[in-house]
C-alpha cells in the first residue's frame, strides 16, 4: 500500500481568520480516510483543499503543500482542471444538474472531450452500476435527474464523479441530507468502492466513521487533534479530547 496524498504544514486563512493550522496527513491508497470533529472544526474546509475547491472563494489564502502523484498541487504550474479530473468530489447536498440522468453522468466525460456515443453509453452504464443505481433508473435514463429521490440523486452525483474515472473520491458529509435507508446504501457503496478508489469522507456521524473507515482524523479548532487507524482512534485514543468526543461528551 502506498501513500496517495501527502499533506504538509497546511495553513488556511479566510481573510484574517485562520481556519486550518499546520495540517500534516498521509492518505493511503485504496483506503477510506474519515475526517470527524465538531461543527466548525475545519474538516470540510480541509477536504476542499485536496481538490482546490477553495480556489472558488476569493478571500481564501493557503500556505503549505499537498503532494499528489509526487507533485505539489498548490504549485503555480499545477493544472487545477487535471487535478479535479483525478480527485472527484461528492457534496453535502445532492446537486444533480437540471438535465437528464444520462446527461448528468455524461457531463464530465463530455467536457473532457469524450464524444463517441457508444463509449459514453458504456461509461454511463458502468458508472451507474458502480453507484448501484443502474437497476433503479435503467428504464428512465433520459428523464430529468431532478425527478429522482434524494438518496438516488446522491448516488447519481457519485456516479457522475466516477464517470470521470478519478483516483480519489472526496465525500463531504454525503449522507447528512439523506434518510437512514439511503445512508446505508451509500455506506455499502463506500465499502465496495475502496477496492478501486481512494476515499476521503467527512462525516458528522461517528458510528458511520467507525463502520466504514480504515483511518480516522479527529479535527478540533483547525488542528488535527489525533490521526490514526480507526480502531486505535475509537478504542484506544491517545488524546483525552479525542476520547471525550468519541464518547459523546461534546460535539
Amino acid at each position, binding site marked *: 500500500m502506498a501513500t496517495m496524498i501527502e499533506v504538509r504544514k497546511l495553513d488556511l486563512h479566510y481573510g484574517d481568520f485562520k481556519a486550518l493550522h499546520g495540517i500534516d496527513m498521509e492518505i493511503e491508497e485504496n483506503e477510506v480516510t474519515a475526517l470527524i470533529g465538531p461543527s466548525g472544526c475545519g474538516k470540510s474546509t480541509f477536504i476542499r483543499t485536496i481538490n482546490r475547491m477553495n480556489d472558488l472563494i476569493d478571500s481564501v489564502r493557503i500556505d503549505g503543500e499537498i503532494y499528489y502523484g509526487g507533485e505539489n498541487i498548490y504549485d503555480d504550474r499545477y493544472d487545477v482542471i487535471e487535478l479535479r*479530473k483525478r480527485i472527484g468530489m461528492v457534496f453535502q447536498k445532492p446537486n444533480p*444538474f*437540471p438535465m437528464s440522468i444520462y446527461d448528468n453522468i455524461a*457531463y464530465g466525460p463530455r467536457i473532457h472531450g469524450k464524444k463517441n456515443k457508444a463509449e459514453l453509453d458504456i461509461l454511463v452504464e458502468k458508472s451507474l452500476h458502480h453507484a448501484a443505481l443502474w437497476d433503479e433508473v435503467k428504464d428512465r435514463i433520459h428523464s430529468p435527474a431532478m*425527478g429522482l429521490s434524494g438518496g438516488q440523486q446522491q448516488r447519481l452525483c457519485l456516479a457522475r464523479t466516477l464517470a470521470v474515472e478519478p483516483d480519489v473520491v472526496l465525500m463531504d458529509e454525503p449522507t447528512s441530507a439523506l434518510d437512514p435507508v439511503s445512508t446505508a446504501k451509500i455506506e455499502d457503496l463506500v465499502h465496495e468502492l475502496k477496492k478501486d478508489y481512494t476515499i476521503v469522507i467527512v462525516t458528522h456521524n461517528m458510528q458511520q466513521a467507525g463502520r466504514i473507515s480504515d483511518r480516522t482524523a479527529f479535527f478540533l479548532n483547525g488542528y488535527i487533534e489525533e490521526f490514526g487507524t480507526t480502531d486505535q482512534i475509537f478504542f484506544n485514543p491517545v488524546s483525552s479530547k479525542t476520547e471525550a468526543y468519541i464518547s459523546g461528551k461534546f460535539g
Partner: protein
Amino acid sequence: MEISANTKKIHRNENIARGVIWGFAGLTILILAWILGFILYRGFYSNNVVGYKYTDMSSDVLTLNDGSEVIFIANKGIRVKDLTADSMQELYTHVIRELNKWSDYTEQSVLCQPIAYKDESPFNSSVKAFLLGKEGLDNWKSYTTYAVDSRQMIEKVAETKGALGYIPAGDRNLLTKDVVPIPLRSIQVAMNSEALAIKDNRSFQEFTEDTLKAIFAGKVVSMTSIGGIGIAPLPAIAPNVNRSLTDNWFGPEFIPKQFDTMEGFYDYMSRNPGAVGLVDYTGYIPSDSYETVTVQRRERGMNLDLWFLIEKPAEGNAGGISYFIINTLFMILMTLLFSAPIGILAAVYLVEYAKQGPLVTVLRMGTETLAGIPSIVFGLFGRIFFVNILGMGIGFISSTLTVTLMILPTLVRTSEEALKAVPPILREGSMGLGATKWQTIFRVVLPAASQGILTGVILAVGRVAGETAVLLYTLGSSYDLVRNLHSPARVLSLHLYLLFSEAVSFDRAFATGTVLVIIVLITNLLTRRLIRKNKQMAGR
C-alpha cells in the same frame, strides 16, 4: 368543547382577512377581464352611429328624373356596401384623377376608373345629366373610358380593377359574377326651415331611424318630444320615392301625405312649418324654405377581419395593416438579436466574473437607473445620436438600435437575477468534475437560469411591441414595408398612436390594438410552452 373569547376573535380576524384578500383578488381579475374584454370587443366588432343625409333604404336600381332606371356596377374586387347616390356623382367628376380612389367609400386604396357610354341615347343623356349636372359639367372627365353597349360595359368593368360603370335596369340579366351592382341610398328627409330654426336655445338638426319611423307612424304629436320646437310633425312623401322601399322599411303604419306631382310636394314642404318629407335625391330641388336633415344610422359589423390583416396599408381610412404586422415582428426579432446576447453576457459578467466591488455596484446602479428612465428620453437620445450624429437617418436601423438600448438594462437586470438564483452547489458540482468556468456557465448555469432569462425576454418583447415614444422620433411614419435598414416605416403601436392622434378612426385604432394584444398573447403562450419543457427537464 369550550371556545375561548380570544380564539373566537382570532377566527373572526382570520375570516375578515380572507374576505378582504378574496375581495381584492376578485376586483383585480374583474378589472383585467374588463379591460381585455373591452379592447377585444371593440377591436373585433364595430358599432358606430354615423350621420348621413340619406335614410337607410337602399336599392341597386336608381330612378332618374325622367323615369330611366339605372344600375351602377363595380368590379367584384371592390368591397361594395351600400353607398349614397351622390358618391356616384363624385366618382365620375373628381377633379384630380390620381386622388379619385375608392378609399372614402370602401376603405380600399384603389383608383376608381369610371366608364361611360359615348352615345346620346335618352337613357345615356339622362344618366350623364345626373352624374355631371351637380358639378355643372357638360362633358365626361378626360380620364373616363367608354363602352359601346351594356355587354361591353360589363366586360370592361369585369376586367378593370376599380372600375365603375352603369347599365339600364333592363339589362340586369346580362350581369356576370365578376361584376357587382351597387346598392344606393337615395331617399332623403327634408324639413321645413322653420322647424329647424333655433328657438329658445333649441335646435332640431338630426333624426335617428327610430324618430323617423315614429314620425311616419303618426306617433309623434309634438316635435318637442324628439328635440325640436313645439310643432306637430306633418309627414309627407314625394311622388319620386320608390314606394316598395319605404313600405318595407316603415312597415304597415306608414301614413304620410301623398302628392301627384313634385310641385305639389315642394309646395306643401314650403308652406307647412311642421312638414317632414321623404324625397328621392335624384329629384331634389334645394330651396330656402326647406332643408335636408341628417339621419343617424347605426353601423354594426366585423371590425378586425382577415382583409384588414392582409391588405396593404394605405393613407387615411383605407387599407389594412399587413406591412405593420411584418414590420413589428421584424423589429422585435432585430432588437432581440441585438439585445439578448449583449444583455445575457453582461449579466454573466456581472454575476460570474466581476469582482464584487464599487465598480460593479456603480454598474448595477447605472443599469437600474437606465431601466427606469422613460422611453421618450431614449427616443430623444436616439434621434440625436443615431439619426443625426451617426447620420443613420430616420428609419428602421436607428429605431431598432434605440429600442435595443432601451430594453437592454431591463434584460441585464432580469438575467442577473436569474443567474443569481442558480444554486451555488450546481457550480461547485460542475467545477468539481474538472469543468472550466466557461463550461460551467454555458452548460449548467445558463440552462438552469434559462427560465428566468426567458421571462425577461418576454417582458422585453412586450416592451418592444408596445413602444411608441422612441419610434415617434426615430422610425418615421411611412406606410411601406421595411425593405432595407434605413427605410422609414410604421409598426403597429406607432400606427395606433398616429391613427388616434390624427383622429383617423377609432375602429382602426382598436383593431390595431387588438392585433398587438394578440401578438403579445401568442408570444407569451409560446414562451410558456418553452419554459414548461425546460421546467420538466429541471424537474422543478
